[in-house]
């Protein structure tokens, strides 16, 4: 399997708080890697460091062997890193289909057109992606009025529209009903198989994590404390301590 992402010794502090300290891990194509840990462990900070929203104090992030530290999010996205957000971020004044079309326009660098209507660009591609995530029927609804779980799926379609090699999903199933969660993650897993994607996701629902991750890394207070297959991580006493509130 080919190595997609190599993270080494990532560090980031906010004021006096060391949010991420010396995190290293790798992500290969075809993997579904779960990043778990209690609230405040530094998961979202990690994500923001990976997609360029934050700049690390130290460490390297290599994407297909290329150092991406210091690049803005839009450049990292063009290199093949898609992202969904913990708190969904879509274009609320556009319809579901237009949201996906917007991404496709960006992929094809058609953002500066002044004449041809945007709504006619890449319509079929957008619809195909929406069908894939089960949002085809709601394509013409404004994004501003969607239920939370549906927004998450729109975000997934938007991320896929960029044809990413790596997908960063920050709590992809938060706010969804249990059935929906399994459905979305099953969809994600099948996308990984179809497209040879590499997925890194954070999640609080342990059923989702242990049901769908191929590998798990555990973060606590900014440090990686365990890494391995779901079974190995489940059995790890350090992980149990963090999650069951044993030793401090």
């Amino acid at each position, binding site marked *: 399997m080919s190595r997609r992402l190599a993270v080494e010794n990532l560090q980031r502090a906010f004021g006096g708080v060391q949010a991420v300290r010396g995190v290293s891990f790798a992500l290969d194509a075809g993997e579904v890697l779960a990043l778990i840990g209690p609230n405040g462990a530094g998961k979202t900070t990690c994500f923001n460091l990976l997609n360029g929203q934050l700049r690390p104090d130290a460490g390297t992030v290599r994407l297909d062997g290329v150092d991406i530290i210091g690049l803005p999010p839009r450049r990292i996205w063009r290199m093949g890193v898609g992202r969904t957000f913990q708190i969904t971020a879509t274009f609320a004044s556009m319809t579901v289909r*237009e949201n996906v079309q917007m991404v496709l326009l960006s992929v094809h660098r058609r953002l500066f057109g002044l004449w041809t209507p945007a709504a006619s660009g890449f319509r079929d591609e957008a619809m195909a992606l929406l069908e894939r995530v089960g949002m085809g029927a709601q394509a013409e609804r404004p994004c501003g009025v969607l239920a939370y779980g549906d927004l998450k799926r729109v975000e997934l379609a938007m991320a896929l529209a960029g044809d990413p090699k790596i997908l960063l999903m920050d709590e992809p199933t938060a706010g969804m009903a249990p059935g929906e969660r399994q459905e979305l993650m099953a969809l994600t897993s099948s996308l990984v198989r179809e497209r040879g994607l590499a997925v890194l996701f954070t999640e609080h629902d342990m059923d989702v994590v242990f049901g769908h991750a191929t590998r798990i890394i555990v973060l606590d207070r900014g440090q990686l404390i365990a890494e391995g297959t779901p079974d190995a991580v489940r059995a790890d006493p350090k992980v149990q301590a963090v999650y069951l509130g044993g030793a401090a």
Partner: protein
Amino acid sequence: MSFYLVQFLSGLATAATLFLVSSGLTIVFGVTRIVNFAHGSFYMLGAYLGWTLVERWGGTPLGFWGAVAAASLAVGLLGALMEVGLLRRLYRSPELFQLLATFGVVLVVQDAASWIWGSEDLLGRRAPGLRGSVDILDQPFPLYDLVLIGLGPLVLGLLWLLFNRTRWGTLVRAATQDRDMASALGVDPARLFTGVLFLGSALAGLGGALQVPREAVNLHMDMAIVVEAFVVVVVGGMGSLTGAFIASLLIGQLQAFGILVFPQITLVLVFLFMAVVLVIRPYGLLGRAEDAPPTAASPGPPLIAATGVARWAPALLLALLAAVPLVAGDYALIVLTEVVILALLAASLHLLIGLGGLVSFGHAAYFGLGAYGAALLVKHFAAPMPMALAAAPLLAGLGALAAGWFCVRRSGLYFAMLTLAFAQIVWSVTFQWYGVTGGDNGILGVWPPDWAAGKAAYYWLTLALAGGALLLLRRAAFAPFGYTLRAGRDSALRAESVGIDVRRHQWLSFALAGSAAGLAGGLYAFAKGSVFPTLMAVPVSVDALVMVLMGGIQTLSGPVAGAALFHLLETEAMSRTDWWRLVLGAVILVLVLAFPKGVAGFVRDLWTRGRDS
């Protein structure tokens, strides 16, 4: 040496007044998030009321200071009244509607003051006991100004006590930091807001009343002070009292010494200073990121391309307009020519506000640059009209490209203030560069050539050019360019993470909007036959803003409807009564209260409701 000391002291006296007014503005903004244009009107009312009361009671020190206090309290009550009667009904409207409403109040107050006190400057009596001056290192310095210098820190101290040692003040601070949380804790926001408006307006009134012994009270005090107060508030950091105090001191000194060092650019110095501060410190001297106002325009419903019959509405309107010269006389054509030009100006501003969520307070700069670009070519190079009209959008576009590069680096009200700063810079250069621009004499004799000199011919020309530009703006809104601009407004985070360079796109939009406004300016120059610096002054920027807001920002036809409505109203009111500001202001207030989504938004809602039922 002593000369500089006196200059320094007079700078401090200016600073004290600035602080009184801007502290009120920053308190009101901090809690209500309202950009209160009427704050300057309260200052002016304080001065007029102060003048009347001082004339009556001001013979004794007690009477004088009683008059000042009474004027301040009365203005505070008016502020509270504005909150209860007007603003309270608009808290659920888009934030910009509150701004529009306060502008309506500005117009009403101007005419009310002119009606009560007349249009002559009023000289008040000096403060009893403080008439003389003291010698400071052999230079005389007015005693009254010394008192003012002491008053600034005193008010700061009292406000500090109020906000840190009283329950009410604590509530206000809580509401400043988190409005929703404060109301969740059982604070009645309505009562709190009324109180805050009372306090803020009373401070403005106090600042105004204190001017009576210093300067003539006149009808231009309101706009002058509100722009300066905004500069102070922005430089100090929105919502920060201490910041406002420091900024007042700095700007007071800048004004005192700027006139000695750079007499050529006195008018622009304060705005240059603000621009520099904002470029270095994005949220002002003591402001924090989280106090920054959100982007002014909240995302609206999807723009829906017109379908069915409505799709032909623009073409139909154009055809109708083109036929007007067959029936209308010269006067109607002149007015209609102006309407078409202003529609383009409003639509270009709407590109920024409606699609980009970028509220510009200085759009007149590009209108003016276009007008002057055309006029200067005619005057200095005897250029033919087509060349001058081609140069207008070009010069304005270049100006917008330069200013926009700075402006788009900030958002919300900070963006608005930077656009205002650049507009003031352009205006003052035009005003003070006498040799080239003719200063306030303007440039005369910018008439179209014979083939376009007839009113109908020029109207058709305007309709073709402005109509074409309007069509292009409309296409652009539905094209990827407009969508990308909206994407950046809806969620900059998402936009950046799907490869959109939001800032660059906003920059280009700013240039596009600027050059469209420039074309409007060029057309306006030839329509009027002359250009003056007032074309790029604050009132024109505000007019454009009012047109956009009147029409409603959520539709593309809004600005066109708003421009027509505003200009026809203004022309009609001006021709019928001297009190046209009162009429216009009252109409704005009624419109804001009756159609909180703007006229075009209202019509569209009716249309959709009719279709759905």
